[in-house]
């Protein structure tokens, strides 16, 4: 642990999702361990923003155990810029192919949003080619929106491709999942909404992501959906989230983990639900912000059938591939993580 700590402090990482630079990471607080799972027993969750290509099978198993029945994986960058069109194509194909299958093995319904992320919009020549590729994927089964798109640095190139993708969303009649920037967040959020309205999008078709206490009021007032990312150190903490729901109510608010290849938590949604239970938020409100609102927003794509995951999904044995990656021949699909013996 000590070595890990040193590594991280000597090599500061550019965080994947939010970092409000004036926000200082909280000091770890000693807590009594709480069996939070007992508070959410039998509840179902929908995580509308999580990057599963960066997560392990252990994460999938833990998510299924915690009650996550469906998720949305927005198209994203890889932590470093891609250098060619073919890697974009393969990435999009993996979101509707291998990752979708991998998720199904744990009984979790996998949807995705397709888009050119804001950082990579800055490589204009490549971005132009990617724009030609996007329609091939935007109309695929299980693609529930154009995302995550928006601003990072708020450059002219970012604005150009943000606008172009809003047009694609309109054309395909798909919801839009907007990533709001880490720096100048308030301004970037306002600008993202103004441009969406300028292009004639119905705010009811737009999910503004990575909100905080500073941005939420305006987003809700203008009729957009407000998503909150519970992401350690750099974004919302779940205690703050409880207070946001207490103040604004559950309407058009949704919680996600945005877990990815950074230090993040794929159980952020169920953990936040448990904290809400413990702090007296009503069951109806919890259900809305951790399940139903995300479904209502993204089901406008016509690509979500709640029946596919509302009842416990039977893991189709014929779809279980005992290959040399996930489930080895003859092995029970469930691994006993606490066992010393690996059979």
């Amino acid at each position: 642990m000590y070595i890990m700590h040193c590594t991280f402090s000597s090599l500061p990482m550019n965080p994947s999702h939010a970092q409000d630079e004036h926000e200082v990471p909280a000091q770890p607080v000693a807590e009594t361990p709480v069996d939070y799972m007992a508070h959410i027993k039998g509840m179902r969750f929908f995580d509308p923003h999580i990057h599963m290509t960066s997560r392990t099978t252990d994460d999938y198993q833990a998510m299924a155990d915690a009650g996550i029945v469906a998720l949305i994986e927005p198209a994203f960058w890889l932590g470093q810029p891609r250098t060619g069109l073919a890697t974009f194509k393969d990435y999009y194909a993996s979101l509707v192919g291998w990752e979708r299958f991998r998720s199904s093995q744990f009984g979790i319904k996998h949807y995705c949003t397709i888009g050119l992320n804001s950082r990579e919009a800055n490589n204009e020549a490549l971005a132009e080619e990617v724009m030609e590729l996007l329609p091939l994927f935007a109309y695929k089964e299980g693609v529930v929106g154009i995302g995550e798109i928006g601003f990072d640095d708020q450059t002219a190139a970012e604005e150009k491709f943000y606008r172009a993708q809003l047009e694609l969303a309109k054309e395909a009649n798909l919801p839009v999942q907007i990533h709001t920037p880490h720096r100048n967040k308030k301004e970037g959020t306002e600008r993202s909404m103004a441009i969406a309205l300028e292009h004639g999008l119905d705010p009811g078709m737009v999910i503004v992501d990575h909100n905080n206490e500073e941005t939420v009021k305006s987003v809700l007032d203008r009729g957009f959906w407000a998503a909150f990312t519970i992401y350690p150190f750099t974004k919302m903490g779940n205690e703050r989230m409880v207070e946001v729901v207490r103040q604004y109510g559950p309407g058009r608010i949704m919680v996600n983990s945005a877990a990815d290849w950074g230090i993040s938590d794929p159980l952020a949604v169920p953990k936040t639900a448990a904290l809400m239970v413990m702090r007296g938020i009503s069951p109806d409100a919890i259900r809305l912000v951790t399940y139903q609102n995300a479904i209502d927003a993204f089901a406008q794509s016509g690509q979500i059938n709640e029946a596919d995951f509302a009842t416990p999904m039977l893991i189709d044995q014929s779809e279980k591939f005992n290959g040399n990656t996930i489930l080895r021949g003859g092995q029970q699909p469930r691994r006993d993580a606490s066992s010393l013996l690996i059979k």
Partner: protein
Amino acid sequence: MTLPDLFNETAIESEKAWLAQKQAAPMPAKLAAFVAVPRFVSRRPVPQQPDWTMDRLARVLLLTAIPADDEAAYVKAIETLFDTAEMQELAALYTALPYLAFPQKWHFRATEAVRSNMGPVFDAIAFGNPYPAQYFTEAAWNQLVLKCIFNDKPITRIHGLLDRANATLAHDISEFAHERWAAGRTVPAEVWQLVPRFMNETLLADVKKLLQSPSKADREAARQVCEATDYNAAKQLMYNA
């Protein structure tokens, strides 16, 4: 029953009308329709063909409506669909291989499906699909069968299984069994039906071992090998038993 009959028997009117319109549409619209199928044809089993679903059948029918007069254009269109396919589309494309023009052109693609770790994609080439038996090289065929065995999938659902049995495959099955046995694991008894025509001393030893197996299925499989083979030492085992 022809594929169109199979579809029309189960499809509702709106599905039939949509498919007929798209089959007659110009090429780009046809390709877009291939992607859009689940929006217009619901995913439910084809009653007479339980491995297929109605949306997959509709996709295969759209592919058969692609004009094959220009080979280069035809191959390019199909390759584009493969390159950008999601999981169900891939399964439909592989299911359609026996119905496509220029069948030899798809050999490499078909072996890619054997390499796939997506269950529905692998199953689409492996089970009830006449393409591998007809066009696979021996090496590709053996890989298909061995991968099925390795993954505990039922080889009996492979089209043409016994017709394409060969000595190399019999050898590979024996090797695989030794590896599994050494690891304290088992081999599905049905694999031994692929060895009677290729018996040798090694396989004879395997059969002897199987006759002593605690598994009834293993013992029965060994007896069937002895009955089916012309290899005298194996036939002898039965007389002695």
